[in-house]
């Protein structure tokens, strides 16, 4: 090898070595440029890379005196020598540059450099042109030689590889950086409580990620755009929160629906700069924030801390960040909505509880009445209510009502209606008058057209009378204890709150002890199952008539359970309200009952007998004797008198007469209870001879006196026991 050639080779290897130790792309590019200049003994060199997004060539690094001026300068592909080489991939050697029309003079004009001769070679990686390398003006010579071209070609092959490698590395580094930024943004979802906190925290991350001092989110508010969150914006600017979107970069972004990156806003026609002093650094990057593809805000970043201006990569990073900020914003908004909803629900639950609380749970009635009531709202807050008021002198007021509608408005109206009706009990004990007065006030309060149906009654426990009036409410029931028939309580009348002046009818009826008043709202009879079949008044009446429970609570539970059974899993449409009042006569030591000849009815008779026995403080053994005897007597009438026919009538009349408890059974069976037989021993049971006679034998032994009599078609069995 020639000494000259060896010298060149040594230079070549030296450059290669240096390039290989560098990691940074820009440093690599500088080394390549410097190397080319030195290797080719030229005055200047330049390296341009292709930006495939814009189809431009841009100077990444240029050496020589004017290098700095060229940095980031862009020239269109196909323009000039570099453009041609980049487009064709063919190297060019030009030795009469002054006269060559292919030269792109623009660059020389900027740099005031006069190109005499040049070599331009493509930088190729895997058949892909990534840029061009140029050396300009051979020192001390008029022209570049073919040998020079070959040397530069070899060098360029190596340079292209090095650039590609650094590019890959850079890209990976960028990706890692992007990921870490996005991760930090995601984290803020959990750490920030409010949307404002979240946005402020997010733009602080943008500041760090883009190494910039000034970041702002400018958001649409009605027709205008305002600063929603910002870092580094002078207070003077923020004072006037509104931001113009006329003939400026924001307008440009709205128009193009894309982001902007500008290395120098002073040379950028998209910017309208009113106060240039505001910026220390001229580079700018911004992107729109879109919600369902509509621009709702802008994310703007300026005042880069590094000298190098923002590049396309910064815009891409910013776009990614913008997307994440939007996600965060939506998430935060949903969370806030959810929290508000939870708060609302909590408040609703309190309202519902308050509403339940104002309905009486205890019913002081001196033993005159046994009351149970409940309301089950369809929504959390219901419109049904019941009420109960002791009025003095053995009188009690009872009300059941249903406000049209459900939910909070119905609940509020319910509270008003309840107080209004309640107040009028103080003035009058006439249910019709109470409804008339309440109607006036409720009409005045009912601006939204709400109304309430109401059944109002006064129970006089001294006269044993029920006085009632009705305002558009359903027929209510009174179960007669003696006959177990249902009496309907109803009068015509409009609901309260519909007309300003309204009068109501009033009715009065007597009740017997142990009669049961059942007050209900239409939610009871109209409770539907999954097939939309209503519970119905027939089933309700049947249930009431067949109830053998000894307390109002028991009867209420029975009905409520039956309704639940009917409803199954169906969603309740209406509030269910039920009030059961058993009309008592404490101290009364007599009872008259009429029941059908069915064994289960023995419970009603035993309940009454038990009550009287307790009333007179009968001992356990005497009570047991009486109850056992009643059981035997009734069983005999059903089994042997009516021969298990279920529709026979049995009247029971029981009373304490002095210290003797007398019970008379009257039935109309053809075969009366036969006259007492000679005692049959219980062992007859063991011999499977049936229990005919054993019941009567027991009665004879347990009671003091047993009399049987037949008058006309009736059989009378009277049994007596002295209670001591």
């Amino acid at each position, binding site marked *: 090898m020639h000494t000259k050639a060896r010298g060149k080779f040594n230079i070549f290897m030296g450059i290669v070595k240096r390039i290989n130790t560098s990691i940074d792309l820009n440093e690599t590019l500088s080394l390549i440029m410097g190397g080319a200049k030195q290797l080719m003994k030229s005055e200047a060199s330049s390296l341009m890379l292709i930006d495939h997004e814009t189809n431009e060539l841009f100077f990444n690094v240029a050496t020589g005196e004017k290098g700095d001026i060229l940095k980031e300068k862009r020239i269109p592909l196909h323009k000039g020598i570099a453009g041609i080489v980049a487009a064709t991939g063919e190297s060019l050697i030009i030795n009469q540059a002054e006269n060559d029309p292919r030269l792109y003079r623009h660059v020389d004009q900027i740099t005031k450099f006069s190109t005499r001769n040049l070599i331009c070679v493509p930088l190729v990686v895997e058949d892909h042109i990534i840029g061009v390398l140029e050396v300009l003006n051979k020192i001390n010579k008029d022209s570049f030689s073919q040998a020079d071209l070959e040397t530069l070609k070899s060098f360029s092959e190596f340079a292209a590889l090095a650039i590609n490698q650094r590019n890959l590395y850079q890209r990976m580094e960028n990706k890692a950086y992007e990921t870490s930024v996005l991760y930090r943004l995601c984290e803020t979802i959990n750490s920030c409580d409010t949307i404002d906190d979240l946005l402020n925290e997010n733009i602080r991350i943008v500041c760090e990620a883009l190494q910039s001092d000034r970041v702002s989110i400018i958001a649409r508010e009605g027709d205008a755009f305002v600063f929603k969150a910002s870092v580094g914006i002078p207070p003077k600017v923020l004072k006037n929160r509104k931001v113009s979107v006329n003939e400026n970069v924001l307008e440009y972004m709205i128009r193009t629906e894309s982001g902007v990156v500008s290395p120098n806003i002073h040379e950028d026609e998209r910017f309208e700069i009113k106060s240039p002093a505001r910026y220390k650094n001229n580079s700018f990057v911004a992107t729109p924030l879109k919600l369902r593809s509509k621009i709702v805000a802008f994310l703007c970043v300026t005042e880069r801390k590094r000298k190098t201006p923002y590049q396309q990569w910064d815009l891409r990073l910013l776009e990614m960040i913008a997307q994440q900020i939007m996600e965060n914003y939506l998430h935060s908004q949903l969370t806030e909505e959810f929290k508000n909803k939870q708060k609302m629900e909590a408040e609703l639950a309190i309202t519902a509880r308050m509403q339940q609380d104002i309905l009486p749970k205890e019913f002081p009635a001196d033993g005159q009445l046994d009351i149970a009531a409940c309301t089950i709202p369809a929504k959390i807050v219901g419109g049904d209510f019941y009420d109960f008021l002791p009025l003095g002198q053995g009188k009690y007021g009872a009300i059941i009502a249903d406000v049209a509608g459900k939910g909070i408005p119905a609940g509020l109206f319910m509270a008003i209606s309840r107080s209004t009706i309640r107040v009028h009990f103080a003035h009058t004990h006439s249910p019709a008058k109470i409804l008339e007065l309440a109607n006036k006030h409720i009409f005045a309060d009912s601006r939204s057209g709400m109304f309430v149906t109401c059944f109002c009654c006064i129970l006089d426990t001294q006269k044993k009378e029920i006085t009632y009036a009705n305002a558009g409410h359903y027929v209510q029931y009174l179960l007669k204890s003696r006959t177990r028939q249902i009496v309907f309580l109803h009068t015509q009348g409009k609901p309260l709150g519909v007309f300003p002046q309204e009068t109501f009818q009033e009715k009065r009826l007597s009740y017997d002890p142990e009669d049961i008043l059942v007050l209900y709202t239409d939610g009871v009879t109209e409770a539907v199952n999954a097939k939309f079949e209503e519970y119905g008044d027939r089933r309700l009446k049947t249930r009431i008539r067949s109830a053998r429970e000894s307390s109002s609570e028991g009867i209420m539970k029975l009905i409520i359970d039956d309704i639940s059974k009917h409803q199954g899993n169906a969603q309740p449409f209406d509030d269910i309200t039920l009030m059961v009042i058993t009309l008592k006569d404490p101290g009364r030591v007599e009872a008259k009952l009429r029941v059908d000849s069915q064994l289960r009815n023995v*419970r009603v008779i035993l309940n009454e007998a038990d009550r009287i026995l307790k009333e007179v403080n009968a001992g356990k053994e005497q*009570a047991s004797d009486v109850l056992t005897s009643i*059981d035997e007597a009734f069983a005999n009438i059903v089994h042997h008198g009516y021969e298990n026919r279920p529709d026979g009538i049995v009247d029971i009349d029981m009373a304490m007469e002095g210290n003797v408890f007398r019970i008379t059974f009257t039935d109309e069976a053809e075969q009366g209870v036969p006259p007492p037989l000679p005692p049959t021993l219980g062992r007859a*049971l063991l011999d499977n001879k049936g*229990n005919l006679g054993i019941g009567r034998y027991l009665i004879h032994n*347990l009671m003091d006196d047993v009399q049987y009599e037949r008058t006309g078609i009736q059989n009378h069995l009277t049994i007596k026991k002295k209670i001591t």
Partner: protein
Amino acid sequence: MDLQAKDCNDVKIFMFEGRLDISRCTEVEAELYRAIDCGNFKLILDLANIDCLSSSGLRIFIAVMKKLKEKNGRLGLCSMPPHVFKVFKVVDLDKVFEIYDSTDHAIACFQESA
């Protein structure tokens, strides 16, 4: 009328509470038969809290006793208050049943002879 049951080794104890009137007989009888059908042949009926008992109740006890005898089982009646025992006595059935003053006593006797 309330009927609760508990197991004590191979003995099943039923505790009665309230009135054993004729309207409850069918369900009580069915409950006791169910226990026997499940293989419980040693039954104890605790009658301490029974308010009143009529012949329909007696009939159940007899039927259950007969059924158990077929299976070589036993029926014990326990803790009868006087007003209940009276009913047994009146119809001369007080000697027919194994009657114990407490469930513990009944269990002990059942296990002793087993």
